């Protein structure tokens, strides 16, 4: 008995997100829309910020110029992350 088959039976109480009324087509459309709405959105900035931090650390070890590049990259990644539309 999977979640999709019977989500409402966990404790015998009604489910929190009631299915919308309508034909099967509109039902599946509304479900798809809701699935998109509740799925986490992708973002490349966590990856970019982590890489920028590594460049900064490698710069700390090998050369101040690389360190400076790392600082710029970290700043850019933080700004990019902050400006990302959700």
């Amino acid at each position: 008995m999977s979640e999709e088959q019977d989500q409402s039976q966990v404790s015998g109480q009604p489910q929190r997100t009631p299915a919308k009324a309508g034909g099967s087509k509109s039902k599946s459309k509304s479900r798809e829309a809701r699935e998109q709405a509740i799925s986490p959105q992708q973002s490349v900035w966590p990856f970019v910020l982590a890489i920028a931090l590594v460049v900064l650390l490698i710069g700390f070890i090998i050369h101040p110029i690389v360190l400076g590049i790392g600082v710029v990259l970290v700043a850019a990644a933080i700004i990019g992350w902050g400006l990302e539309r959700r």
Partner: protein
Amino acid sequence: MATIVERPSVVRRRRFGETYIGSWIMTTDHKKIGIMYIVTGFFAFLVGGMEALLIRTQLAIPNGHVLGPEVYNEVFTMHGTTMIFLFVMPTLAGFGNYIVPLMIGARDMAFPRINAFGYWLVLFGALFLNASFLFIGPNGFSSAPNGGWFYYAPLSEQQFGCGVAGVVGCVNADFWALGILMLGISSIAGSLNFVVTILRLRAPGMTMNRIPLFTWMTLITAFLLLFALPSVTAAAGLLLLDRHLGTHFFQAAFGGDPLLWQHLFWSFGHPEVYILILPAFGIISEVLPVFSRKPIFGYTFIAWSGVAIGFLSFTVWAHHMFAVGLPPIAQAFFATSTTLIAIPTAVKIFNWVATVYGGKVSLKAPMLFALGFIAMFLIGGLNGAALAVVPFDYQVTDTYFVVSHLHYVLFGGTVFGIFAGFYYWFPKMTGKLLSDGWGQVQFWLMLIGVNLTFFPMHILGILGMPRRIYTYPGNLGYNELNLMASVGAFIIALAILVFMYNVIVSLRSGKEAGTDPWDAFTLEWDTPSPPKVYNFLSIPVVRSRRPFYDKKNPDIADWKTATH
């Protein structure tokens, strides 16, 4: 005559996030992040394991020549650092990431992007630390950290860090300190996420008294990390200041104090031991009831003994420092607190045994590893209690007795717990069952290997063999015991090869798992295997500690009979 002109169809270019690689790089889905943590952790386990095999090959016979002293220092340092920071912590974080939101009926972690950031820091932190092997230092050897995973000052300072008299300017300690800082940021990001997720995103009805014990232990671990990491972060920062700006925090010759490092490090380092073991306690507390067909015995005691362990773990750090010459009152305090922590730990063991007692026990692979965990962890706990006795500690401090103790706890305990988790949740993550037959082979090989490797180390320690030495002469009575330990290490390696074979074969042609292969009790099993990206289309409502059991057995549901 009309002609039909075909209009070229509009083909949208796939966005990067829709490609296979892009979907992993850009993911914020806690399940994908959990899998990435676990896979990265396992690769680190292989690296740390190979370093262990190098150590055991070097020590198999007296006067070994496999590794020189400089390389040996790097290998044992990176073995400890890798196993603790790059294998155990990420793997347990991976299980937490994957399982906790599903267990509590949430759709994701509270901060999905910070969650992804935490993972990428671990991956790049691992690459950064291991890249140190590629940098040749002024001493002619690689720049891998070489001062132990605890990196005691003043050996980490510029004038001693190369390990060769008169040579300065090595960056081994910089790699270690910067790597630890980076991994610390990751752990703080992950811990904040777990705390907020567990406290704020639980399904309706899932009170703190009903959250699964794995979630409880993950929550306590997250708090431990938040409170323990600042001290090692401060220590690493001060070390970098000493090394690069000429401060003297840890240099006795200039009025600094090397013991300050030990206090700062171990006030992180001992809670760290519980950070490494508490999630494994949680895994065991999920596996034992399912494979005994009983509710967990003493849920409240197990949960609150975890909290007690968390508090007490901050009061025991100086038992790592008995030999430095602490005043008697401090020794008495830390000996007492260390002994006290055995009480909540024993409470857990009693409850686990009582859960199994009288149950319909099914000895599948997850259960075998869970039972192996109890037995091995018990040995590690008992010899740990022995080390709390100050006069005994004086005799065996920095000997192989301590190596034996920590490996019984962290390998016999945590690693067995991790494999219990692998076998238990692999079907949920992949939709395939791991072969139980190969699982049993792996378990028995590991049980034999662990005891053959680490039990003789008790005796080696009592005989006086110091830890961290790269070789030993042949006339001290260490030879046979060292050979046994080395043979045991290769048996463990064989067990891991069996596991890898099992995973590959099961992924290719394993039995379909279905949604609930173990007839389990908690909400993660109420989803398809693997679960959809949004976990639950409708958020479930919870009325007891075993919500999925209630759903499958409405007539005898827990909420009809139990008061919690």
